């Protein structure tokens, strides 16, 4: 297994499946009277959050605690050290605490890479979302959810058609999903206004479209990305939130265009009324709440796989 999880591209087909298979076993354990496993007893997992994200932080915290790790949460947001040297100083502090894994959320793309490559910390680094770059564990939990609904919970996503809609340009979720879902054999289509597709997207393992209605009929799942209203009027990426939701939001009419088996996903937090209407969000084929519960199992799997055998590797 790899030592750090920085990008969804770090996982090849075999490793990605191993995470999903392990998560599936761990999810089954969630129903037991005692949810805790002793696996990471005596190991220290640090949640290093330079950016607010209650959902992701809680999910990682629950995952680490269910594996009996000691969890230290470090919220650097709003502290006096806001940039530059702080990353290094914080890393050195964590090193002194003996962190076996550092889960890092940062507003700067590549900050987890810096942490992993700098030699400032010995532990495994897990990217919990960096800038507009990646969010690999979100992609893993999305793949896990897709597999449960579209592939009977086993194997990969060969030939499944996944449509990801919205602000691809600024979305770390879209980047990680495009890479991971392609690794798992899915056919990914990104749908967005042209202003929100990054330059060079033709080199990604996906196809793109500006036409949501056309893409929906051929989708086994549609994943709606959060769109910040500020990108509209002030940001100039689209004329208004209203025009955006008319062209790229999902509502009941568009829901009806989907095949009957298709599911609707959203990484949260949702902007109800912008990219998704309340009826769709609460629809029985919307799996948004399930995504959250799968998140804990997937993150447990990642921590277990990254931290097992690490002592042996260091000795070797």
């Amino acid at each position: 297994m790899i030592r750090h999880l920085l990008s969804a591209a770090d996982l090849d087909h075999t490793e990605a499946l191993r995470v999903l298979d392990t998560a599936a076993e761990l999810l089954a354990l969630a129903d037991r009277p005692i949810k805790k496993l002793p696996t990471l007893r005596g190991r220290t997992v640090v949640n290093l959050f330079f950016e607010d994200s209650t959902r992701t932080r809680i999910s990682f915290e629950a995952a680490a605690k269910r594996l009996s790790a000691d969890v230290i949460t470090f919220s650097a947001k709003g502290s006096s050290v806001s940039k530059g040297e702080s990353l290094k100083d914080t890393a050195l502090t964590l090193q002194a605490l003996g962190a076996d894994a550092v889960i890092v959320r940062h507003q700067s793309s590549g900050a987890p890479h810096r942490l992993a490559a700098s030699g400032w910390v010995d532990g495994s680094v897990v990217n919990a979302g960096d800038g507009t770059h990646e969010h690999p564990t979100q992609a893993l939990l999305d793949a896990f959810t897709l597999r449960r609904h579209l592939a009977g919970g086993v194997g990969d996503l060969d030939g499944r058609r996944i449509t990801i809609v919205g602000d691809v340009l600024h979305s770390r979720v879209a980047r990680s999903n495009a890479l991971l879902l392609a690794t798992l054999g899915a056919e990914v289509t990104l749908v967005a206004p042209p202003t929100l597709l990054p330059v060079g997207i033709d080199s990604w393992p996906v196809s793109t479209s500006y036409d949501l209605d056309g893409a929906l009929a051929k989708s086994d799942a549609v994943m709606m990305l959060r769109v910040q209203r500020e990108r509209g009027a002030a940001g100039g990426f689209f004329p208004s939130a209203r025009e955006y939701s008319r062209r790229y939001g999902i509502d009941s009419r568009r829901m009806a265009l989907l095949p009957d088996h298709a599911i609707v996903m959203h990484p949260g937090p949702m902007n109800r009324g912008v990219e998704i209407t309340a009826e769709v969000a609460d629809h029985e084929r919307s799996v948004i709440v399930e995504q959250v519960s799968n998140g804990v199992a997937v993150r447990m799997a990642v921590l277990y796989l990254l931290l097992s055998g690490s002592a042996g590797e260091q000795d070797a």
Partner: protein
Amino acid sequence: MNHPLLLKGVRPLGGQPTDLLLRDGVIAATGAAAVAEAPAGTSELDVAGLIALPGLVDLHTHLREPGREDAETVASGTKAAAMGGFTAVHAMANTDPVADTAGVVEQVWRLGREAGWCDVHPVGAVTVGIAGQRLAELGAMADSAAHVRIFSDDGHCVSDAVVMRRALEYVKAFDGVIAQHAQEPRLTEGAQMNEGQLSGRLGLAGWPAVAEEAIVARDVLLAAHVGSRLHVCHVSTAGSVEIIRWAKTKGWDVTAEVTPHHLLLTDELAASYDPLFKVNPPLRSAEDVQALREGLADGAVDAVATDHAPHPVEDKECEWSAAAMGMLGLETALSVVQEAMIDTGLLDWAGVADRMSTRPAAIGRLRGQGRPLSAGEPANLVLVDADARRTVRPLGLASLSRNTPFADRELPGRVVATFLRGRPTVLDGQAVEPGTARPAPVGSLR
């Protein structure tokens, strides 16, 4: 006064071996005459095989003084320049305070004289505080002791077309030139790296080539319209080279420079997220690198300029977006040009002398720099061992800063000696402190 010095077996511009006699700050004689005219007590130095070039002239150096003496000082930066074979540098204006008055440019000029490593020619700011709004007192800087001829808001683009037009017009009165940092500000808000396939994948905000090319195109047209001189700083894209080449065919007075790093490195290095590779303009694609080399070879691009930009360790030892932009350049420039231009057969050593000394001196209107290596000319020269190879060690650099993108990389060539008006500032690859009682260099530097 300096000892007379006879350089034996040197190859001017990489040509046939000859002897050069340096006396009283000039090249007193060459060839057989050099030996014949050497007075008694002349020191002889066997430099057989070394290549002599006119002392290098940098159009674009950030010496950081006044204001950021933790990153570089005039003394440390000019020492680095001497180590790199330079005998003159142009000190950029974006200091703190900004070099936008006669007082500041004279201060920098004087610090350069006192340090004594190489000539320091301050660049004056185009606008007050390099804020892009009001013209600075360009005339006062031109008339000052610093004798400023190049004006630049480098680091910032003079993006307002009217301000740029007025600046181009105004400097005609004293044969000045506006050196433009071509970067359309709105197209590059928050920009972190070259916009292309990689920026999309890395999630770093893109700096598109068009943001440079749009300004270059506008400025060559403005320069033609008002009949003035334009110099384009650090061109980085194939499109800019093409526009400048076209402007030259029109006969317009447009010159351009390229940095050593843009001749060798590509944006792929950003994939490491190591801010050592963060620079403005950003490292571009391999196609851009090739176009820049070809432009430099055919003369569309006139000069190599280092854009030597020292930054303290803490400004680079951080996450990419928080890091400062810029790279060291003075001490590696000649080696990089050798690898990119000589080893590829695109330029010979005479071409390198032209692009790194003659033409930059002409653009800066410097007298006594960038001159031929012939009798009667000022003895500003650099001796290069082209066959040597060396590994760049950041801790071994004379600069106060360590932010070289070539760390631990092996590069060809080595500056063996630099002479500033006959006085060695570097001998046998070692800096010679100015003002120290200089032992007569005798022996061999082979």
